[in-house]
């Protein structure tokens, strides 16, 4: 066996090598020996490879895992960045809108305080429902005023003044839904010379302050500014 290994390790001299090869042809026992050695080595190789392959498979698995893990980290990092940006934007935005709406709500209250505390009494028949309503309003009887104006509106749905006052009464009573309804109806009318409907609706919306109201207010104010509807100077 030593001789065979020497032969394969190329440590034999040329003469020895030739002699070995010559003997191989005529000596069946040696041939058998070589055949065994060659096969044993192939078996050892195959076996070693199989084992090494298993080790590699494990290594590969751990590589895939770490890769996946690092991929997860990347995703997590990206997600948190997006989240932080979103959160930051939301806070920033809500601060701004809070600030704006605060200002506008105060401003709306101030406007209402200033302009709606007393209604202009008109000369004329004091038995007129409108007049009754105005009087009741000015004396602080909002309930009576409400009944008067709303009856009037019911009787004559095109009575713009009555509708306006009904809205104002509702606004004072903090019945913003009702106020918005009246002002909105008023704002839709195109046959009036002066129509503060949209502006008043914006005031009422500012007070109601539901999630979508801000957007509506923005739109209304934009519209008022653009068309120079009643109240546009206030908006400016």
């Amino acid at each position, binding site marked *: 066996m030593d001789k065979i290994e020497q032969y394969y390790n190329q440590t034999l001299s040329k003469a020895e090598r030739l002699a070995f*090869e010559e003997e191989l042809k005529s000596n069946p026992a040696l041939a058998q020996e*070589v*055949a065994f050695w*060659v096969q044993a*080595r192939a078996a050892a190789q*195959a076996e070693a490879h199989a084992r*090494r392959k298993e080790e590699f498979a494990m290594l*590969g698995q751990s590589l895939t895992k770490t890769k996946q893990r690092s991929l997860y980290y990347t995703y997590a990092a990206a997600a948190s960045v997006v989240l932080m940006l979103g959160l930051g934007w939301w806070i920033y935005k809500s601060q701004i809108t809070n600030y704006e709406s605060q200002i506008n709500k105060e401003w709306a209250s101030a406007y209402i305080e200033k302009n709606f505390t007393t209604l202009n009494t008109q000369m004329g028949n004091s038995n007129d429902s409108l007049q009754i309503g105005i009087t009741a309003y000015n004396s602080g009887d909002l309930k009576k005023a409400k009944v008067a104006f709303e009856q009037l509106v019911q009787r004559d749905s095109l009575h713009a003044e009555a509708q306006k006052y009904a809205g104002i009464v509702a606004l004072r009573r903090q019945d913003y839904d009702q106020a918005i309804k009246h002002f909105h109806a008023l704002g839709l009318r195109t046959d009036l010379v002066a129509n503060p409907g949209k502006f008043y609706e914006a005031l009422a919306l500012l007070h109601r302050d539901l999630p979508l109201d801000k957007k509506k207010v923005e739109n209304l104010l934009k519209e008022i500014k653009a068309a120079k509807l009643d109240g546009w100077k206030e908006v400016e």
Partner: protein
Amino acid sequence: MFSFNKNLKDDAIVQGILAGGTQRRLFENKLYEKFYYLVRDAQFKHKISADDAQSAYSDAILGVIDHVVSGRFEGRSELKTYLFQIFTNKCVDIIRKTTTNKAEVHQNSVGLEDALAWLPDEAQSVVRKLIAESEVEQLRKHLRQLGEKCREMILAWGEGYSDDEIAQMMAYNTAAVAKTSRQRCLEKLKEKYSPPTPDGGAFNSPTGG
């Protein structure tokens, strides 16, 4: 000292494997890791399963290691090019195996053929009559039944470790002692295994008289 970063140079890997001893395994793993991305590429390119790609990759790596150890890899091409070529061939083998669904043509393993090719023609044909791949399988089975120490030794030998390295790895005093032990183990293996008679064996009936 070397640092085990991912960008170990090809040269360093080849040198590390050639240096042998206990370090060799480390560098083999480095080699495996360095080009592991080829597995994913191959999955897409050849449309083979992840397991197949990984298996082919391991085979290719083992092939490269064998070539490096035996000196057949001369460093004329880049390690990556060399590996890629072997890997691609392995992948193609897998595709062929799965698409044609034919039983593999019985072939001697590369190691066996290499050993035979050493011999001059006439001697080669004499020996060739005495061997068969199926017997290698038998031997592998017997190998697994050998004692722990013997098996380790023969496997290390199969991986191309020298007796000197085996002595180091398995704490033998000298290479000569390791060699004697190893040869004794081989003898043990031989005892377990009974070769078919040259003219009676079913595997290797000679074509001529």
